[in-house]
């Protein structure tokens, strides 16, 4: 094992994002200072308009802050160009979206390969790695299926495989269970917890306490600020709940 890095994986200081709509100035994010360590599973909560989505966009390198500091793995993101941000997303971040965002009419394995395509990995290696990841999320036998041929839970597993395939620094999941029923949601959360136990840093954006209870730390946003930063020392175990439900049934 490498010695732990002397700095947190995510480090923000006074992070702010300001939008101008005509004469109105909207502070979507108003001075957020948060550190997230490697291996943490963090839930970002708050009502809509609280700034949690803006926060996710900024730490996901999809957008640049208006002011403040953001370091991802020690790198100053605010100083990056558009294409450097793209490379940062490619190498460092695995996205999981509420609506899966898989390419239609494209086989599951090709969806998983997509980030590797932009990383310039040769086709053969791409395929091998994508197949490994599909096997890891339990869909090794569905590699040739198109998204339309898969259930919602399976589609989200493909999306998670896609997020993992570049071996990113963190998984950034935006309402990952928002489009799923409660049973499938539990399965997805169990998968994310399993990845977290394997050392993966996971940041979950959600407004559902049902989902947040599986995280070891909960950040609550309101009006563009962090109003509560709470450690959950005994997060619930999604896999155990699933097993119990199965036994009951």
């Amino acid at each position: 094992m490498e010695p732990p890095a002397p700095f947190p994986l995510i480090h923000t200081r006074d992070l702010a994002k300001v939008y101008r709509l005509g004469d109105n100035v909207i502070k979507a994010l108003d001075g957020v200072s948060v550190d997230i360590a490697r291996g943490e599973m963090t839930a970002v909560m708050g009502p809509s308009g609280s700034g949690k989505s803006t926060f996710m966009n900024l730490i996901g390198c999809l957008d640049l802050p208006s002011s403040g500091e953001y370091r991802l793995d020690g790198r100053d993101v605010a100083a990056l160009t558009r294409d450097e941000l793209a490379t940062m997303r490619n190498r460092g971040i695995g996205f999981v979206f509420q609506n899966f965002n898989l390419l239609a009419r494209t086989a599951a394995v090709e969806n998983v390969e997509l980030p590797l395509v932009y990383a310039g990995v040769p086709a053969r290696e791409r395929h091998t790695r994508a197949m490994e990841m599909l096997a890891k999320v339990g869909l090794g036998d569905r590699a040739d299926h198109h998204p339309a041929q898969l259930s919602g839970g399976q589609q989200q597993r493909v999306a998670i495989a896609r997020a993992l395939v570049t071996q990113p620094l963190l998984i950034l999941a935006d309402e990952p269970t928002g489009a799923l029923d409660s049973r499938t949601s539990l399965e997805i959360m169990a998968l994310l917890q399993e990845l977290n136990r394997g050392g993966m840093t996971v940041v979950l954006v959600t407004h559902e306490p049902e989902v947040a209870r599986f995280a070891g730390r909960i950040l609550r946003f309101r009006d563009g600020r962090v109003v509560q930063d709470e450690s959950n020392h005994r997060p619930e175990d999604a896999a155990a709940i699933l097993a119990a439900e199965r036994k009951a049934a």
Partner: protein
Amino acid sequence: MTLFGLLRVAMRALAVSKLRSALTMLGIIIGVAAVIVMIAVGAGAQARVEEQIRSLGSNLLLILSGATTSGGVRMGFGSGQTLSEDDAAAISREIPETLAAPALRGTAQVIWGNQNWSTVIFGITPEYVEVRQWELAAGHMFDPTDIAGATKVCLIGQTVARQLFGGVDPVGQVIRVRRVPFTVIGVLEGKGQSMMGSDQDDLILMPITTARNRVLGASARAKQRSVGTIWVKVQEGHDMKAAEEQVRALLRQRHRLQPGADDDFSLRNLEEVAATQEASSRVLALLLAAVASVSLVVGGIGIMNIMLVSVTERTREIGLRMAVGARTRDILGQFLVEAVTLSLIGGLVGVLIGVGTAMGIAELAGWRIVLAPESVMLAVAFAFAIGVFFGFYPARKAARLNPVEALRFE
């Protein structure tokens, strides 16, 4: 992403809405086909003009005997008899790069059996055949003794042969030209229409001496060796302008014209006439191609239109690609390749249809067409350029999308 990968993505995207892709291509297909057909037809017309110029004989000067004034009334060129066979001989002798052929011209009724036909008679020397580049289809030429002895022999053009003899072989037959019997010793190769539209094969050639003494009669006899026209061929590689001036100076000197006096002959450089004709047919071909390329541009606008729609429809896909690491150039390349794929496939289909149509026109309408590989390549290259040009704006629009907004797009 490799080019092959981009091509695969593009083909897949185009296959999603096949009808739409096909309709978009239609503009390019029609444009390319039109360009190819127009160039083929235009080049065909140009080739015809060039052929006509060749049939006239190349590097020719035409000298017409000059205007006479009779009682203050000025007659047209050719009315006077200011040129003579001696002028022609002098030109050939004094200006070594030229060959001059004198000709007497008249019209006459010709009769064979119960057929008769009115045609043009040329009294010539053997040089004429060389200068005007007449070939024989059958029979043989005059020999010098025919000229010296004013033999009653003649060569007839294809039209005369057809009108008088129908299917019979004319060689050896005797025809009557103004009641004078002539033996047909040869039939000329056909030249077709002249640039002015007159039939160049409707003529009879006979020795100049015979024509003067037996056929064209009294007015020609008045001035014994006078001729109406002299054709001058200038050897390949010599400057036509210079030759023209030399001939003019020689004739003025021989006719003892004072400096400042008008020429008593008319000297025409047929090269210039030909060049004008050729230029106008080239302009026509160019104009046709230009009109056709307008439809290519319209096709390009169709591509731009559909690519803009496609970019909007696929905003989320673009956002997703950006989220997983697509850089500006990846997205730009993806949509540019898609636009170029549309235009290139359209271009290739257009080539097939264009070549087919051009051949059909040649077959059905009997027009002359020239299908040059360069014009086909040009049309395809133009289609490619249209794809790049009209695909660039939508592709750039896609590449410049904000990933956050693109991902949230509904």
